[in-house]
């Protein structure tokens, strides 16, 4: 469809990265075929994942216990690289989809569909379309938003904001939803919906970020099978790609000795740790560092990237299949850099004034009991998860790195930690990684294998999945914080 529907081949299901497109335009004869490797992830070689799986019976057990579909789906397979985390992930997901809660089961899946549709994540949509029907949802709703009750439709606004610009959520939005009327939401219902939305937005990030493949044998049982829209360019998928792309790997990436890259990172971490004691940045500098990081995040991706095409151009190219767009309104609404809003002077969200531990948890747990504990456990788990390894090195304290990742995501959503030196982000996260982070958290649908491959080349895939988990949870927490803060304000 990127080629104007001229060729209805399998390749049409994939968006093409610009380079490929260029090549394709030059040479229309090139036939691109469906990639043969069909592991759980397009980014990670199948054997990496499978290997880990056979060892781990625990994973299978967890799947039996919590999986809603009753089988080991690709997300779970990839996540099973981190079994500890997988357990809390599945448990919380199971709780919000299946256990007692304010919303009826089909609603929950429909909300998941709506959330995933914001990022055109067909993988999640397909999954939940099935579940939606299985739990007794009305098939008509799947025709699009016009067919659903007004009540669900009202959720659109908050879904849109939450997915792309959560800082815009105000208590007025909440008031509009809960104010008494025919289609009002009760607060517990709303909290349940918000948790679901945030969860699925973040999960979409993970799906794209880890290049999750469509399920192997989609049961075409309901006739609502969507065309899978993946944004992996064929060149990303093919292992030996036949597209001539010397220019890509040559000039754009620049061949850095990846080994020394790793060493340099280690060195920087060490230095930062030591520096701490003696050198202290002045306060002014600290705050400027945050501003700087915020500003800089603006130029990541949207400005010049190795994609080397103008931003607007890209947006024009974003043709959304009608299959997905029927679940969303205002498809043009996307992430807009928090920093760019500077002129309107949106206040920075001070993390210390509304923290998950102190405030968010209490509110969530009050209105939707027990989910707080599950989410709390999940956040804790992902924040503290470490194997004390970095690529080939062992016994490394990666706290710094993990914190940098987590805080950088929050920084892009305008959440600032007073006690964090944002200079660290600059030191620890190289540019290609920043590009990746920004893409995965803000425009997950644009993630490509090249982005995934281009950072931390020495690192193991499981470590990169770990990065994805951090990004996903950080994003979910950021969305939740904004939404819950609005609800709190509504309550006071």
């Amino acid at each position, binding site marked *: 469809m990127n080629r104007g529907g001229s060729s209805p081949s399998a390749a049409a299901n994939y968006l093409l990265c610009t380079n490929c497109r260029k090549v394709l335009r030059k040479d229309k004869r090139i036939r691109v075929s469906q990639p043969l490797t069909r592991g759980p992830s397009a980014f990670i070689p199948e054997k990496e994942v499978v290997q880990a799986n056979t060892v781990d019976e625990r994973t299978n057990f967890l799947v*039996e*216990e919590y999986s809603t579909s*009753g089988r080991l789906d690709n997300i779970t397979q990839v996540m099973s690289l981190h079994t500890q985390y997988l357990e809390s992930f599945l448990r919380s997901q199971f709780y919000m989809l299946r256990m007692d809660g304010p919303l009826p089961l089909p609603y929950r899946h429909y909300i998941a569909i709506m959330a995933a549709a914001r990022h055109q994540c067909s993988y999640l949509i397909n999954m939940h379309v099935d579940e939606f029907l299985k739990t007794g949802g009305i098939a008509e709703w799947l025709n699009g938003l016009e067919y659903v009750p007004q009540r669900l439709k009202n959720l659109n606004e908050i879904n849109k904001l939450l997915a792309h610009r959560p800082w815009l959520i105000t208590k007025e939005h909440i008031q509009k939803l809960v104010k008494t009327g025919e289609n009002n939401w009760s607060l517990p219902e709303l909290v349940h919906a918000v948790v679901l939305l945030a969860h699925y937005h973040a999960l979409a990030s993970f799906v794209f970020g880890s290049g999750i493949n469509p399920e192997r044998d989609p049961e075409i049982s309901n006739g609502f099978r969507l065309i899978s829209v993946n944004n992996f360019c064929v060149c990303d998928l093919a292992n030996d790609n036949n597209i001539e792309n010397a220019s890509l790997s040559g000039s754009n990436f620049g061949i850095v000795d990846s080994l020394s890259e790793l060493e340099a990172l280690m060195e920087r971490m060490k230095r930062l740790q030591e520096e701490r004691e003696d050198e202290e940045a*002045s*306060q002014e500098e600290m705050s400027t560092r945050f501003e700087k990081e915020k500003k800089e995040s603006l130029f990541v991706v949207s400005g010049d990237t190795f994609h080397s095409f103008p931003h607007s151009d890209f947006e024009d190219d974003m043709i959304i299949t009608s299959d997905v767009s029927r679940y969303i309104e205002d498809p043009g609404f996307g992430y807009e850099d928090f920093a760019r809003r500077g002129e309107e002077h949106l206040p920075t969200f001070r993390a210390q004034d509304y923290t998950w531990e*102190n*405030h968010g948890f209490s509110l969530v747990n009050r209105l939707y009991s027990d989910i707080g504990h599950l989410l709390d456990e999940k956040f804790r788990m992902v924040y503290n998860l470490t194997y004390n390894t970095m690529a080939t090195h062992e016994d490394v304290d990666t706290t710094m790195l993990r914190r940098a990742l987590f805080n950088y995501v929050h920084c892009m959503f305008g959440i600032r930690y*007073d*006690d964090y030196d944002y200079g660290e982000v600059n030191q620890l996260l190289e540019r290609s990684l920043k590009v990746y982070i920004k893409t995965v958290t803000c425009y997950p649908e644009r993630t490509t294998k090249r982005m995934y491959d281009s950072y931390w080349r020495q690192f193991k895939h499981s470590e990169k999945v770990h990065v994805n988990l951090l990004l996903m949870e950080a994003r979910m927490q950021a969305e939740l914080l904004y939404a819950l803060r609005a609800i709190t304000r509504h309550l*006071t």
Partner: protein
Amino acid sequence: AGKKRTTSGEGRERQRLPARRFRTTSPAALRADSVDGGSLLAPLLGLTDRAFSDCPDLADGAMEKMSRVTTALGGSVLTGRTMHCHLDAPANAISVCRDAAQVVVAGRSIFKIYAIEEEQFVEKLNLRVGRKPSLNLSCADVVWHQMDENLLATAATNGVVVTWNLGRPSRNKQDQLFTEHKRTVNKVCFHPTEAHVLLSGSQDGFMKCFDLRRKDSVSTFSGEATEAGPWEWAMAGWVPVLPVISCCILRLYHSFAHGPMQDAESRANDARESWGCLLYPLGLCSGPQAGQSESVRDVQFSIRDYFTFASTFENGNVQLWDIRRPDRCERMFTAHNGPVFCCDWHPEDRGWLATGGRDKMVKVWDMTTHRAKEMHCVQTIASVARVKWRPECRHHLATCSMMVDHNIYVWDVRRPFVPAAMFEEHRDVTTGIAWRHPHDPSFLLSGSKDSSLCQHLFRDASQPVERANPEGLCYGLFGDLAFAAKESLVAAESGRKPYTGDRRHPIFFKRKLDPAEPFAGLASSALSVFETEPGGGGMRWFVDTAERYALAGRPLAELCDHNAKVARELGRNQVAQTWTMLRIIYCSPGLVPTANLNHSVGKGGSCGLPLMNSFNLKDMAPGLGSETRLDRSKGDARSDTVLLDSSATLITNEDNEETEGSDVPADYLLGDVEGEEDELYLLDPEHAHPEDPECVLPQEAFPLRHEIVDTPPGPEHLQDKADSPHVSGSEADVASLAPVDSSFSLLSVSHALYDSRLPPDFFGVLVRDMLHFYAEQGDVQMAVSVLIVLGERVRKDIDEQTQEHWYTSYIDLLQRFRLWNVSNEVVKLSTSRAVSCLNQASTTLHVNCSHCKRPMSSRGWVCDRCHRCASMCAVCHHVVKGLFVWCQGCSHGGHLQHIMKWLEGSSHCPAGCGHLCEYS
């Protein structure tokens, strides 16, 4: 505040200790003094002694300080009123100066000192100076030194600890900056008696102890419970810093509290350590480098134990530290589920520590015992952000929350369900609370996110206890009655109303008041239980009726007949008649109505006509007799109720005693007693209890008879039953006492009226009234049964809510009698949405694991114990999570769909066991 209390506990304790004891040179003499562990103390005291002989002036200085504290706290009487002032920004914390006349407020963008005056707060000083306020000024916590009026410390959100010296001549009062913490500092705390010791607890999981005369922290404590290596003391580098007075006492205490030491070696070590604490070692600021440490939420120095401080953590733990031993904590226990946000040592009771957590609980721990013992637990409605013991009130503490709830509560920990006092001034969450003076219990200061600072006066507090109704009354299923009321009330009452010599058996439970502290608000109540006479039969009729009624599945006429028969057999003639009437009204005309009419007239007992219906008078007589017998006991319970009730409501309803037997108290009770009052009116006069002559239950039930019998006559009667001459209230009174005599001869029913039949709709209003009547009588069973049987015919006349109310009442009653099947049937037949969804709630089916035979607690398809999936589908070999169907012959099964499909094509069990399964 009493004058004699003006000395602080600390001061007294220390003063009792003669200073010269420290100068004694002979350890032997001390050994004689010490109660226990003399040998342990010998080396210790020797050392201590030497320390002081090295610097005697230090010891003297400390003593001086002690006395200064004492005088400082003996202030004059505080005055003031409840007042508040607006701040420019939300406050995060407040702290009071020791002179009780100034308060400091700190927040993200505010840091000011206010003077507390008689009528208002007056801004005294703005500490937030400089052109561009740095993050160092963004305060998470603030504390004012309790000994030095010029000394303050703040914890900044960026991890800096700042001290402020108000004595500085310049505009900027900032004194020192400690930038050792990597994350937000949550709490700072000054040592209660030491001028230079400051403790901080941070998000990074470390607690640091600062000596304000030095630039770095002197020791670091890691929240992580790691086993640190043996502590090496660099003797050479020690500098005398802290004078220690009560050292020996403390060691003694520690040896009590923590059991006997291992051996002589460790004793010596201990001794050296305790000495080391006097002299902070140099170069210990590095501390242990931990990987994952839990964030510290609060740190508090013990008020009584010189070296001890408590710290609370995000993971729910509380640790007790000896400040001299940064390598490991003295004690650790899990206090809460989730973060412990705050803690506070009891100002008087050594070792009482109050903790508050996100789990909405305040717990009081006794730390003096070997294991921390939970003494009290208060459940609040929101997470507990701050907790502060109320001065001079041993069991009171104040709490506030950081989410949702804006009020400040003062609790009596012995009465954990109702706050003793409540301050409702704030419009947003309260972030800081402080008692104005450490010995004045009536002034509380608070800061809030709504940008205001408040002074609350205890006498202006709202007291929920006052509003609480301390009486409780509850019926048992079989007519037993329990009644709880304030002890004083019952005692006063018993003088006036002697219950003695009764068949009732009151049981009293009393709770002793704590004589040490008379507290008016503390409830002590007496519970009395009154039982019905054994063998009274109780609610037998209800159960029988419920079980035997037919509610659906047959034509209306049959249902009515059936139910009428049931009622009649149980001797409930009036109900039976109602059913019959309903049949007449709603069923097609013909022979039946006439018959019924006869029957209804004959019911009075004066008419001997042979009846076509399936009952006759012979059935009736014994039925009636049993009913009256049954009612006598009912009457007992009933009269008790009335008596009791009058005593319970005596305060509010003074004239109850005189009007007893009138409908005032009776009505008061009716709501609870479903399904029995309708029979009370059958009470025979001769069965009435002589000891309760006034307990006659008059009119309330009687109009029914008239109403029903009045039904046949024309429309003018239907409009308003009060028009009927037979139903006037006074007459009913008389009639009620003679139900079995021939008062029915009053009624004459003309057949003619029935010839011109009225449409059933016509009776809608009447039937509605009748249903309401039954329901109000308490016979909700009848109301619901009729509602179900008549269905659409009558439903539209009664509003949804009432119907729902009836249904829920009846279902509740059925369930209390364990009539599950009936209750389910009712739920199923109900048309109210709220009721029918009851069937969908708590539909959990508990299953046991097929392998280990234990119940599967968490999920139905996975056993936690044997870690396998219990219910596999024999067809698809997947776990069955929904409907599981299995063969009763071979016990194999699986997904309903799969099994059905399988058995269509095969008759053998899909598991291959060879059994010939059958699906029906």
